[in-house]
């Protein structure tokens, strides 16, 4: 998991969980059904656009406070299940961050991100252990390399598989 590549889907600041996953679908619990409503509150065509990608997954790129609002894990499940490879944002809502870690969805804090310079549809390359990411191979930003325990949690696919494999959670 050293290098992650994907296509950028760019959003702004304060994208809350109602936009990521509207409250009217909170009675769903099947992950495949949940995935059909990913980002519906902000971009009703997101799922369609993602399904048109061939051989490369989406990377969500956003501003400050991505995933603020409700504690609904559906928001993370929807994005993970639809195939989002990683979410790169200036900062994240706290509960969303925990939920993503638990579900094994990679989040990267990139405070220096300049959203207005990033093209929707750009090819994103993330060099995880080097702490750098590139858009279209040119525009680049640095981020703090995540800890090994964080990366192991993501690589294992989330906290449940991690606990099953290692017996308990440690940091």
């Amino acid at each position, binding site marked *: 998991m050293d290098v992650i590549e994907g296509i950028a889907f760019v959003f702004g600041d304060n994208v809350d969980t*109602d936009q990521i996953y509207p409250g009217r679908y909170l009675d769903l619990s099947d992950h495949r059904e949940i995935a059909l409503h990913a980002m519906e509150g902000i971009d009703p065509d997101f799922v369609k656009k993602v399904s048109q990608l061939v051989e490369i997954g989406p990377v969500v790129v956003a501003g400050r406070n991505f995933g603020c609002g409700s*504690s609904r894990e559906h928001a993370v499940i929807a994005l993970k299940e639809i195939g989002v490879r990683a979410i790169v944002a200036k*900062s994240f809502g706290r509960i969303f961050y*925990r939920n993503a870690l638990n579900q094994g969805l990679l989040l990267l804090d990139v405070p220096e991100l300049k959203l207005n310079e990033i093209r929707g549809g750009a090819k994103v390359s993330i060099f995880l252990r080097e702490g750098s990411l590139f858009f279209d191979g040119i525009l680049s930003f640095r981020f703090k390399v995540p800890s090994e325990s964080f990366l192991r949690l993501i690589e294992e696919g989330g906290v449940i598989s991690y606990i099953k494999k290692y017996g308990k959670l440690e940091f």
Partner: protein
Amino acid sequence: MHAIEKILAVAAGKSEVKAGEVVFARIDVAEVNDLYLQVIKSFYELGDGEIVIPEKTVFVFDHYSPAPTIRSAENHKKMREFCREKGIKNLFDIGEGICHQVLVEGGFVGPGKVVIETDSHATTLGALGAFATGVGSTDLAIALKTGRLWFKVPEVIKIEIKGKLPVGVMAKDIILHILGRLKQDFAIYKAIEFNGGVVRALSMDERFVLCNMAVEMGAKTAYIQPDSSTYNYLMGLGCDISVFSEYQTDSDYIYSAKYEFDVSDLTPQVALPGSVDNVVSVSDCEGIKVDQIFVGTCTGGRLNDIRVLAEVLDGEKVSECTRLIVIPASKRIFMEALKKGYVEKLLKAGAVFSTPGCGPCLGAHEGVLASGERCISTSSRNFPGRMGSPDAQIYLSSPLVAAYSAIYGRITNPLHFI
């Protein structure tokens, strides 16, 4: 150490903790609401077995309650079965009220308790001097399985509220004003302590409003140092306060930041649609027509909110151009409001009541909005699409602004009448 750090230290079996440190803390209350069948799924994914904290586990049916869809009815059914199988006696079924309020009234939460809920507004409970925070389904399932959960000890921001609160201005106006100034990502990963003479003078119903909306600034938790109001309130509910432990912040504790707000000149505030931190004085948006007024939720559905509404609407009529939906935060509040005559006054004025619970706040049922409609609400969130159509607009205000707006069918400044 801060009182919050002391609570976490004790829960983690440590003599000292500091901000940034990860601790595995004992959980005193683990609350699951009816949106989270995933908790049960995650619980079983972790393996078979029993819940290690059945007496500390509480299920509350509040978000989709009574069930508005077949799926949510199935979820309720599976949760009832799970509670029966696992020996969970604390199941608060439909109509009992919103999780945070139900936990308080049930005597589960008070000073020093470590509380997790599958609801971001868990911060509300910090008003009682508890450490309370919202988590997702997987975290909650881990707590059911192990009795513990990891937390990063948060830095604490102190917000001191001073001055003299003007007549017609409520806790909701204070917190909206603070949100407008500090913005919604201000306190991510951090805790907020509210302090100062104004906070000390607020009733518990009003203190809950401050802590409730701390999460709208991204806060992990909120805190108000318990005092005689706290204990009088808990004893008034019939709670056994001997089960709680109060902790004091050391005088040499260094806050990560301190802010002061003098509210002596504060006016009623309104958050404009789409963003909870886009806040103006009501005089800057009065006259805007509203199709619905909603008084309810874990932010604005307590007895004090219903009292304020009923006193304004006593002998008045809800404008024909609008509709007023009132949803008490709990059955107990509903019964109190009945006893005090508020419900009758409001029904006569034309209000519509619905089952204690979250109501239309999260866009599931009991008054969702059509496209192009405008609602003024005592709730805490006005994200696009939150209460129904993404093309509806939600204004957030105090119950007092909501009350006068109901009479005129337009956003109305209560100061014209006080």
